[in-house]
């Protein structure tokens, strides 16, 4: 367990992971459930345990859609999406941690793709 990383994720997310009662509702409602190796309730639990590096290495951090379903539907107000965001930021902020580079964009464009998709993806996947 990496204490500094845990501190950083807790501070950055502003989430109190101890409020979680492990009901799994966040994962049940998550539209990316099938694509994720670790699910929203596991993010909360693993951050509590300080097992952040495993999450940072997992593809799951790029699968969250920031749809806030888990935030509004958690009966304890834990706001798991904030934890996912904080872990993803910890990963993309690392040297060479960008998931998406501006030079990758041209290959992803088509004539109808809205600017919104590009700016949002850059915000989520790059620093």
């Amino acid at each position, binding site marked *: 367990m990496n204490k500094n990383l845990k501190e950083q994720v807790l*501070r*950055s*997310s*502003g989430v109190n992971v101890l409020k979680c009662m492990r009901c799994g509702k966040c994962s049940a409602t998550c*539209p*990316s459930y099938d*694509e994720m190796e670790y699910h929203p309730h596991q993010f909360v639990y693993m951050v509590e345990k300080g097992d952040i590096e495993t999450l940072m290495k997992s593809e799951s951090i*790029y*699968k969250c*859609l*920031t*749809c*806030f*379903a888990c*935030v*509004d539907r958690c009966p304890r107000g834990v*706001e798991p*999406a*904030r934890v996912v*965001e*904080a872990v993803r*930021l910890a990963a993309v902020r690392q040297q060479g941690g960008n*998931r*998406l580079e501006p030079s990758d964009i041209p290959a*992803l464009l*088509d004539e*109808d*793709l*809205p*600017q*919104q*998709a*590009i*700016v*949002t*993806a850059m*915000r*989520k*996947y790059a620093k």
Partner: protein
Amino acid sequence: MIAVSADADGSEKICRGNTAVSRQKGFAMETFTYYPGCTLRTKAKELDTYARASAQALGIALEEPADWQCCGGAYTTAKDEIATKLSAVRVLNSAKEAGQPLITVCSACHNVIKQTEYDITRDEEMASKVNNYLGLAEPYTGGTKVYHYLEMLRDVVGFDKLKEKVVNPFTGRKIAAYYGCLLLRPAKALAMDDPENPTIIEDFIRAIGGTPVIYAQRNECCGGYITMEDKAQAQKRSGSVMSSAEDMGAEMVITACPLCLYNLKKNSGSDLPVYYFTELLAEALGLKEASNE
């Protein structure tokens, strides 16, 4: 960064808008600071053109601040992200300085700006960091009232009043409202409608004479930006939204979000037509041809 540059066509429309504003000031015209956002200037011009034409016909003046920047499309919930929140604070402050409420049409802009407003009024540390960066004449600590265009129709114009102005009603048309995620959630910050049983777009559909279709996926995400990262996932999500609407007998789907429109049209594999709600509004008000000239 995406540069914000109005093309010749767009700036002409703003000028026309402004003349209308000055002509009608002093009458019962409500004036809003209007934040179009980057996509409404480019891929989603229809969303913008029809919104402007319809507002004018409904007695609502939209004034666009000169210096707005793209909001970034997604609110960063992280407390240690400050720079990514600045453009939303700038436009909130422009509205405050103009003494006007702020209005947006794009679901994503609306989401970013309302979450920023929510946090800056409650999180003192964030507010002080943001203001240290911005160095405004007077620090911005909240207070601007933010409307989505649909809220303006409901709360300022009123759906009853709107109904009276309809000249081309969508009688007998079965229309599915697609909320997606960013119009409604997080509900405590957006405070627009009940996040699990929303009615605002269905009420809009009734006001323009149509029949709303309720379907399970109307407030679940279409996949959003994941289309850039994992096309298959975007196809699965948007396909599920469209087949849910089709199963309930919808003839068309309407949305307020350019990225929803893209996903539902390009990634869903469905042929069901998808439109911006502003296009139906302009058509109902008899403005569609005029605003395309």
